[in-house]
């Protein structure tokens, strides 16, 4: 896919925060989903949550799994965005979506290897986890996880990003 970012940008190694999910420890209560939706949208519903937990008791393996943005250092979603609506938060390094600039084309989702960005059911714009970077207390999902630190945590990784 063609990059929309200028070719002259340089790479830099930075610290990026992201969610770390431990399927063995997760109890699949889905409190993270509800806290996310309540905090970001003021309502509860998995379609509003930026993290989704699945618990399939009939599956032979991996009965608990989670879908959320990994805040990739190479961030193909950012490259794919035609309006440069996606930027990194200066403190957390999370990929943010500027709702003023997003046009809802969902090229970010197509570029994402895991199809993470979702179309917001009301606003029709792309949404994804931004680690609640605007909240000093950190991601709501982690705060409300009954096993925070074991099942769900924030981890910092080194990544090479364009600057």
């Amino acid at each position, binding site marked *: 896919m063609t990059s929309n970012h200028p070719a002259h940008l340089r790479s830099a190694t930075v610290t990026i925060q992201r969610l770390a999910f431990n399927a063995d420890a997760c109890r699949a209560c889905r409190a993270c989903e509800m806290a996310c939706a309540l905090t970001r949208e003021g309502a*509860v519903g998995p379609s509003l949550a930026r993290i989704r937990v699945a618990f399939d008791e009939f599956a032979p393996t991996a009965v608990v799994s989670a879908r959320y943005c990994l805040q990739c250092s190479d961030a193909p979603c950012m490259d794919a965005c035609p309006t440069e609506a996606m930027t990194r938060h200066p403190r957390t390094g999370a990929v943010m979506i500027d709702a003023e600039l997003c046009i809802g084309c969902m090229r970010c989702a197509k570029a994402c290897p895991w199809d993470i960005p979702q179309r917001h059911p009301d606003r029709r714009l792309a949404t994804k986890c931004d680690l609640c970077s605007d909240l000093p207390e950190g991601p709501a999902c982690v705060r*409300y996880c009954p096993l925070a630190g074991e099942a769900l945590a924030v981890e910092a990784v080194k990544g090479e990003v364009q600057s």
Partner: protein
Amino acid sequence: MSDLACGFAGRTLNVDLSAGTTETTETPDPTCWLGSRGWNALIGWQHVLPGIGPFDPENHLAFSAGTLAGTGAPTAGRMTVSSLSPRGYPTPMWTSATMGGYLATELKLAGFDTVDIFGGANAPCYLLIEDGKASLRDAQALWGLGVYQTQRRLKEAHGAECQIAAIGPAGENRVRFATIHHRLSNAVGNGGLGGVMGSKNLKAIVVRGTGRVRIAHPQRMLEAIQYVNQRISTGLYYTGRPEPGPEHRACSFGCTARCHTRLRPSPDRYGLGVPWLMTSCVDGVWMRGEPAPDAMLYQGHDVHGQRLAIRSTRGFPEQGADLTNLTNDLGITNWVHHTWSHYLGALRDMGITEIDGQALDIDNPDWWRHWLEDIAYRRGLGDDYAEGLSRFHDKHQVGPRYLADFFEDAGSRGHGWHREGRTMERHPSPFWEHSALLYAVSTRDVTPSTHGFFFLNPLYGYPDAPLTPDDVPARFKQIARVLYGSEEAAHPGTACLETVTMYHQHCAILKDSMGVCDWKYPVVALPPEDGSHMPDEAIGNLNAEWMLLEAATGLEMDPDALRRPAAERVLNLERCIEVRNNGRSRELDEAVIPHYQWSDKTDGTHLSSDAGEFRDLLNRYYALSGWDGKLGWPTEAKLRELGLDSAAETIAELRQSVNS
């Protein structure tokens, strides 16, 4: 458009299986009916009229999501299912049962608070609910399948994210203790409602909802959630504090508590296609090991001098997982093993080694496998087992009547006696008295929504009786003072019995209606066992449900009004259904007396030969309830005080007919 903007879906789905039609109506006022159990009672009162039997098309089967389901409230993933249950003994009884899992939340996300099902389909069908729309689908190909295979097939057809409640062969064949099953191990388990669903030719309910539940005060809701989480996340306050581990999984949407549920690999010897076993205290009945040779379930005597010694029977550590999943798959409640294994074991110890030519090979897991299958398909003697222990004994008269009654009788309403100081844990006075009073005025096994009544029991160090008030540890007195307003409530033989019992009845209705876990609400913590000081305010917040309800819905209610008059109203309407439909009266309430004339297994106490003290306790309970002491019926004045004018008129007419 409903006025119930926040916290609720605002709509009830009414499904007429005879006509094959559906329609929607508005959800009744939750400030009056609290939620699921109250809404269901209203359906029972309005539509399940005298003369209707549990398997008649006119019977209703109501599924209602708890008021707090889908709001983010901790543990609030539960729903209440109610109907005229065939399990009731000696007559069918109006019964409510609750179920965890994901179905309650999914139903609300699909746009409904309640699904009220009535009539009967001409051929097997299932109900499909997708984002506000409902349709009936052909289930011929599913009929006869177990609940696991049924769910897998329906997920293949409608997507992995749909949530399903289904019956197995036991429900199809109207077994009186058949379940309605959901996921791996969630179930409307002990109420006996699977057979009602089967009688309607309804194999399953499939729900998919992608909507949302609006919250009136999101920030306040988050604060309330955090408050409750901090108090319940460390463990069950009256059964210990299980440690987290890789096997631990929540049984319900939104359950942030640690409890005994565990997900373990299953060998799947019976080829059910299920690689896992979800265990809880219920499922554990099959997996108990070999008891010590002298281990006794019960050893005691009744007030008439009759002695009874029942040995503990064995479970099956190796095959128990398979038997648990098989029981689930067939759609039978797992509790049957506890009741029947001890009953049949006692018969064998009395020299009765076969019934109708069938050997009682109860130490053999394969025997139990066939026993379960014979019940589910009503084959041979299984057809009689499927009627429940009391009805089985009525027909076969095997062994002494007192033995059968010890496990299940009219006093236990056709359910296995459970947590009454005799067949299970120790429950010395005053706990077995609470159990007796709860059973007396209930229509089913009382435990599932009233675990709280025994939270002062010996599991936490309450001493075995006999004891004096001075022997009661200070921490039990303190919690009694905080909860009931009197330290005396923790004393053996307390004069506060009826007050405490009624408090827990109202708590049960509130918890059921909110859809929260019985093991976690009210949010209470016991003071430390070492006697160190704990301030009263640290013991708990008895209004946690109200905090969550107010933040989620914006409804402005007095916290005390949730129990009285709201829960009290539901309790009275349920009683009126029983009085009107099934002739419930004091006489049947007193059917519990013989069981409690057996001595408590630890302190040896029991009701006296004339049970005068229990009849007096009933008088006090009826007076506190506003029920008359002669019939045990709600008085017209009480019903009108609760706004139940229709019920008041009906009871007045019935009273007139009794008096004339």
